[in-house]
């Protein structure tokens, strides 16, 4: 009832005159000129609106911390059925063959985020899904060699630190925080912003990957040790 009344309000449907004309045009025109990056969405989240993404990385990391605080207990417990190695030869071999391929694709997505859809979030989530696959098919114990459980939260913290560190370096060298054109790399101004976006995307990928694996491990073992 409420939404039927509110539905009279949005004026533009699919045959749309553009809804927000002013800032959006500046971003479209300025993306190649300011940052030498064809992907406008990546420029927007990592450069023009970089503080938003920094806050979001911190939110994701604190969600991982909240899961850890809620669930972890010092009592010992068994690993549930989902975390035991499945004895099936087919899934074993296919998983072992697929994990490196998916990880290579994830690295491609992170580094090619300037020129095609992609970037830090997608790449980090893809690497996290390979680790989740290994935990479920190969068994919780055996996949510790691929990615130990204790590494999850520190890696998430490292991701947030890389992001905040890039901003701080820009502050040290005379500019505003997170203004990549002041990084001390000795390149022209738009290439500096290109490299700044790359560093920041790598930080975001680490953050997302560490946190997702940490949440999964807490939920799988129920927080209990071993």
């Amino acid at each position: 009832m409420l939404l039927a009344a509110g539905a009279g309000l949005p004026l533009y449907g699919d045959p749309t005159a553009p809804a927000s004309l002013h800032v959006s045009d500046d971003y479209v025109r300025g993306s190649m000129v300011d940052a030498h990056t064809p992907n406008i969405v990546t420029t927007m989240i990592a450069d023009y609106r970089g503080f938003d993404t920094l806050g979001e990385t911190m939110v994701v990391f604190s969600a991982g911390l909240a899961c850890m605080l809620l669930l972890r207990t010092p009592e010992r417990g068994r690993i549930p059925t989902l975390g035991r190695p499945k004895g099936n030869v087919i899934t074993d071999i296919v998983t072992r063959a697929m994990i490196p391929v998916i990880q290579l694709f994830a690295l491609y997505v992170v580094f090619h985020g300037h020129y095609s859809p992609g970037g830090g979030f997608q790449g980090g989530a893809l690497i996290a899904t390979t680790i989740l696959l290994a935990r479920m098919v190969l068994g919780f114990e055996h996949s510790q060699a691929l990615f130990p459980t204790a590494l999850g939260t520190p890696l998430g913290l490292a991701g947030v630190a890389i992001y905040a560190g890039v901003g701080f370096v820009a502050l040290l060298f005379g500019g505003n925080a997170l203004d990549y054109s002041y990084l001390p790399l000795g390149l022209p101004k738009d290439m500096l912003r290109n490299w700044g976006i790359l560093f920041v995307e790598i930080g975001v990928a680490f953050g997302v990957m560490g946190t997702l694996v940490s949440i999964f491990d807490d939920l799988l073992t129920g927080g209990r040790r071993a």
Partner: protein
Amino acid sequence: MDITALVTGRWPYLFTIVLLLIGLYGMLVKQNLMKKVFGLNIFQGAIILFFIVHAYKHGATVPVLDDISGTDPARYVNPIPHGLMLTAIVVSVATTGVALALLIRIYRTFGTIDEKDLLVRLRDEDPQR
């Protein structure tokens, strides 16, 4: 309340509102706490869909600059809602993770995740409620 204007020119908004209402129904009416988490996910998907429908333009392409369209803003889909929604999706996954951790704690403490049973057991534990 102009229903014809809503249906003819703006029908994606109508479907998005229907999805919103389904998600809201799931969160409010269902008794099982896990179904409430499902409703939360449906609700988040519908909200993000609402923003993406706002950003669409007829005859426009993906917001990656290429040589054919140059830098004409009318040829590209509006990229600002896309950027906002990328963070919204990741935050929704983190929120779902924390909600599930809460569910496991509730099950461990009370032995049930059904809302009616839960209220009964809370009342038994603390007779003043």
